């Protein structure tokens, strides 16, 4: 592995790990039947070119802590299957039209079949953890326990977000947003891969608390960047519905800031828009008096995007500091450099 010098290097390393993971996933998907109504759908999202951030972080952490790719490949496949299961269900819940530059699964095949394919992906995620792996029984059990905890936290976070939208909850602070994404995003995107990578690589001798802290900061920086890209990213790179978060009424940092900074009249209009979004999902932009573009203009006008960007930069700085704390006892290596480089990558990525 070459030293990590710039964002392109990060993406090349991500691509290498993603390739390893996809090849391992293929072994689980194979030529299973029924293809037409299930496994063709199950294979769809994993075959689209995602970044593969989660398995890459897990594999690199395992290597940095002295383990091998082979030991951590099963859990890496598990998290990628789980991620794809979440995406299928998220797209249905949000009524999204695009995923990784193509129509969403439920747009292609209808909600019932897509929902079932999402269930299948969630079940498949357990298979690499149950199979005979190179891990000892003790480590396998620890990894499975961590997996169950992570899934639980993630669905709790998702439920909170959906509930806020359904009840049109307005009185929110940035701390509420961070508590939400700590559950909804950080657990499965960064905390679990870091914890499990270190657990396997160190044969459960590494202290996990500092890694967990690093994972939360890194995951928060990742999600804030993702939310910003949804508003200002390019359609070609982003691959999802631009402004989708506004149309769906997602309680992002920018929206929370806008609700605090807007005039009384603007706030009332935004609240009405959100109430409409809660009923109509992504169709809200077409039906409400205020459209998503107007909400974005208000965000720009009131500095909500700049606020979120700076807020995220502060968190990324903290992530960088917590990386050095968590990896203080880890010898220098290409894997360690790659993980370190993920911090600025989270802020600079465009897709």
């Amino acid at each position: 592995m070459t030293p990590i010098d710039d964002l392109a290097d990060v993406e090349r390393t991500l691509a290498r790990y993603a390739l390893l993971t996809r090849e391992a996933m293929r072994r689980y998907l194979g030529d299973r039947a029924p293809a037409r109504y299930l496994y063709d759908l199950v294979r769809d999202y994993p075959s689209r070119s995602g970044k593969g951030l989660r398995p890459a972080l897990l594999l690199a952490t395992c290597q940095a802590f002295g383990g091998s790719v082979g030991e951590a490949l099963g859990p890496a496949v598990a998290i990628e299957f789980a991620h794809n299961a979440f995406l299928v269900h998220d797209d249905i819940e949000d009524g999204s039209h695009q995923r990784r530059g193509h129509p969403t699964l439920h747009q292609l095949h209808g909600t019932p079949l897509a929902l079932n394919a999402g269930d299948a992906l969630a079940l498949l995620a357990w298979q690499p953890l149950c199979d005979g792996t190179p891990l000892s029984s003790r480590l396998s059990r620890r990894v499975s326990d961590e997996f169950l905890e992570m899934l639980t936290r993630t669905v709790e976070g998702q439920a909170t977000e959906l509930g806020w939208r359904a009840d049109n909850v307005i009185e929110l602070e940035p701390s509420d947003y961070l508590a939400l994404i700590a559950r909804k995003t950080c657990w499965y995107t960064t905390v679990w891969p870091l914890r499990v990578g270190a657990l396997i690589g160190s044969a459960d001798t590494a202290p996990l608390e500092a890694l967990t802290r690093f994972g939360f900061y890194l995951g928060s920086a990742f999600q804030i960047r993702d939310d910003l890209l949804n508003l200002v990213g390019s359609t070609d790179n982003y691959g999802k519905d631009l402004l989708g978060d506004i149309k769906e009424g997602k309680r992002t940092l920018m929206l929370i800031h806008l609700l605090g900074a807007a005039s009384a009249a603007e706030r009332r209009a935004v609240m009405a828009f959100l109430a409409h979004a809660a009923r109509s999902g992504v169709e809200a932009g077409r039906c409400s008096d205020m459209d998503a573009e107007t909400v974005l203009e208000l965000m720009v006008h009131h500095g909500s995007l700049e606020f979120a960007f700076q807020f995220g930069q502060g968190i990324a700085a903290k992530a960088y500091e917590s990386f050095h704390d968590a990896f203080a006892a880890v010898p220098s290596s290409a894997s360690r450099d790659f993980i370190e480089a993920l911090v600025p990558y989270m802020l600079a990525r465009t897709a």
Partner: protein
Amino acid sequence: MSKAEKGEGAPPANGFEMFPAASLDGFQRLGVQTAAQVIEGFIDLLGAGGATRSTVRDTGPSTRAEPEFAQLRVDVARALDLYGELVRRAFEGYADLLEQRQRATEVQADGADNGPLTLRVAADGAGTGGTVWIHNTTDESACAELHLTDLTAHDGKIVPSSTGCFEPAALTIAPGSSASARLEVVVDGFPEGIYHGHVVAGGLPEAALPLRLVIGAAPA
């Protein structure tokens, strides 16, 4: 104040121009403070958790082990895992063997082909016969006095037990060995059909051999 906030962070090894930490402004500071508050709450929750609680206590970076010792600790943990796994598998293999042996220590009866006994005779035949085996896999010798039950067809017709006789009529089987007896059945005058019954062994309540008697051109 953190190292990042004071600008004391070491230059990044990866070559990126990382954040000018000393110049964190209001929103950045707010981000750091808010995140720290929320994240420490989650860390506390995890610390109180069960299955996912870290097995290793973190004493902080200043007192953390040197990399050489950390590596030694990993190597020892891996070796212990390996030996633990070997011991577990060896125990499971031994336990399986013991269970198999326990299951096998009994006295069983079977036919010449290690299964139920089938005797065939033509419709105008006078009699038929076969071999009955008794296997003793216990540590003690066993005695068996052999009997034939009535044989019954699907329509209720019976070939009575008195039509069969064993030679010898009783067997003594040494520990860990087998013994056989010849069964002869006289069927002269009984109607065609398939009759079912058992060979039982007096003194061995668990030993019973299913017997199928086919008279005439019944299906094989």
